[in-house]
């Protein structure tokens, strides 16, 4: 098990190195570089100035050399300076990451809980009206554009009814807990509604399969209560495939969070990445993209380990 985790960690590191190079190359291809920006800010700059600055910033060197220089610095924790935040990248990232994890974590827990309930109900009454209704709800959740749902929620609850704030994490000056929670409601609701549909469908399928197994019939035959059958016998085997799917859905959750955060002006990683890319803040975009990728890969590893814990038949060597 430990050996397995170690091998996977090495794999993750290798993949990360590869990705950082690709992303580094791609970002260099985006419109405008730091020198262009300075030149547009100061039209009196001469051609010699530009050439000198290019040498200072190292943009005149070949791509691989630049990348290696960046990677060497990054490994020492030196991620460069963010133009957008006017602060070192390493100082700008952590609070945003915290905000994002809070948003994604709470909507993940909510969506999962809701999916377990709905999926189990649907699996217990297959082909019934209730099953159809839940199925339709799932499809609605999967099909609704995240940004549009956010827009409609803002229109209804923030602009229309005025019950909830439409953006930010806290009212300036009054940042107590209740206020923070009120700011979380709409983003979390958006992200939960868009992810719950997919989860429910997986839970239903897994539960449906689990309930058809022999040991369930045995449990029923020996007179176990329905609750015991569901929670003790069926849920355990149904959770195994669900874990895999949940781990794979993490990337989707981050993508959803990006849109949600942008819509609600919620200062998290997603909005940060979007702003950094749009605002030509290369250092920041690069670090943030890699951080998101690392988080996703670690979540996958965690899911693989949870898999072994849930299913005694699985061993990792």
């Amino acid at each position: 098990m430990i050996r397995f985790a170690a091998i996977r960690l090495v794999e993750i590191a290798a993949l990360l190195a590869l990705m950082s190079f690709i992303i580094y190359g791609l970002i260099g291809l985006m419109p405008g570089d730091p020198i262009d920006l300075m030149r547009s800010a100061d039209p009196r700059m001469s051609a010699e100035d530009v050439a000198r600055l290019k040498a200072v910033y190292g943009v005149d060197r070949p791509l691989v050399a630049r990348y290696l220089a960046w990677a060497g610095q990054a490994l020492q924790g030196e991620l460069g300076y963010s133009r957008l935040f006017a602060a070192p990248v390493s100082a700008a990232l952590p609070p945003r990451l915290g905000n994002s994890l809070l948003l994604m974590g709470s909507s993940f827990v909510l969506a999962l809980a809701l999916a377990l309930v709905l999926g189990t109900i649907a699996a217990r009454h297959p082909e019934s009206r209730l099953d159809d209704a839940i199925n339709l709800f799932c499809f609605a959740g999967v099909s609704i554009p995240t940004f549009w749902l956010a827009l409609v929620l803002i229109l209804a609850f923030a602009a229309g009814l005025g019950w909830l704030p439409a953006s930010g994490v806290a009212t300036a000056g009054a940042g107590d807990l209740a206020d923070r929670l009120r700011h979380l409601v709409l983003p979390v609701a958006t992200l939960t509604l868009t992810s719950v549909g997919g989860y429910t469908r997986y839970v239903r399928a897994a539960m449906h399969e689990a309930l058809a197994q022999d040991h369930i019939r045995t449990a029923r035959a020996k007179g176990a209560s329905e609750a015991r059958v569901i929670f003790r016998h069926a849920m355990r085997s149904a959770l195994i495939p669900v874990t895999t799917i949940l781990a794979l859905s993490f990337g989707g959750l981050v993508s959803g969070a990006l849109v949600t955060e942008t819509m609600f002006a919620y200062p998290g990683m997603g909005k940060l990445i979007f702003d950094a890319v749009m605002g030509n803040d290369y250092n920041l975009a690069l670090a943030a993209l890699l951080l998101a990728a690392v988080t996703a890969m670690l979540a996958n590893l965690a899911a693989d380990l949870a898999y072994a814990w849930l299913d005694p038949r699985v061993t990792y060597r």
Partner: protein
Amino acid sequence: MLVVIAVLSFAGPPVGALLGADPNAVDLLNRYAGSSWDHPLGTDELGRDMLLRLLAGGRVSLTIGVAAALTAAAFGTLVGLVAGYVGGWTDRIAMRATDGVIALPLLPLLIVLAALDLAKLGVPAAIAQSDEISLMRIVALAVLVGWTTAARLVRGATLVTRQRDFVRAARSLGASVPHILWVHILPNVMAPLVVATTLSVGEVILLESVLSFLGLGIQPPLASWGTMLSNAQQMITTAPLLAIYPGMMIFLTVIACNLLGDALQRRLDRGAVMHA
């Protein structure tokens, strides 16, 4: 429902001729108009007819959706066939790649890709900024995300089918590899592939709308539902309906695709049970 939306979208020009209006025609005296006989769904911030723009946008969104879903399915099928038949390292690399595409947060990466300046790659500026390129770029991005489902499906089926007697027989008769893949293996995975492709049309439309909404997809004045929403967001408090309509269209189209895919899937499962 899908059929209705598709037919209406592609029938846009004749309907426009009927109402005597052009989806891009500006009428500044008639901005934010409500519903009327001339403009059944009212007009937008430049006095353009909302219904016509919705239909024109639908044409763009549906074309992209279908084109990208088909391309992704074709590419995924190719990868799946080769990986499943050749096996070994080829297979391992291909499957790791699908893992990566499924598990990684793609939207942030897509945003970078969508913002790329093609001129820096040596593409002439006139081409790099044309409408066609913005369409093709979206299709390319959608293929990048969408090929994995088909690849996994086809690979799985190939692994199973290549052991079957009729494939072994064909091989011993000296059939070439492409022939075996095309004639003996592909037909066996067609049905689930059709289901997956139907479902991915919906996904592509969602992706297109998100990118367009963020300002990275279809560029105005060409309208897609995503760009219409993006415009409408700025007038959200004065004219909320302008944002409601296109979102509703995306929602209805995507859910129609998904329900169609689901119905096909069920029919397929039932058929499989009956054959077994």
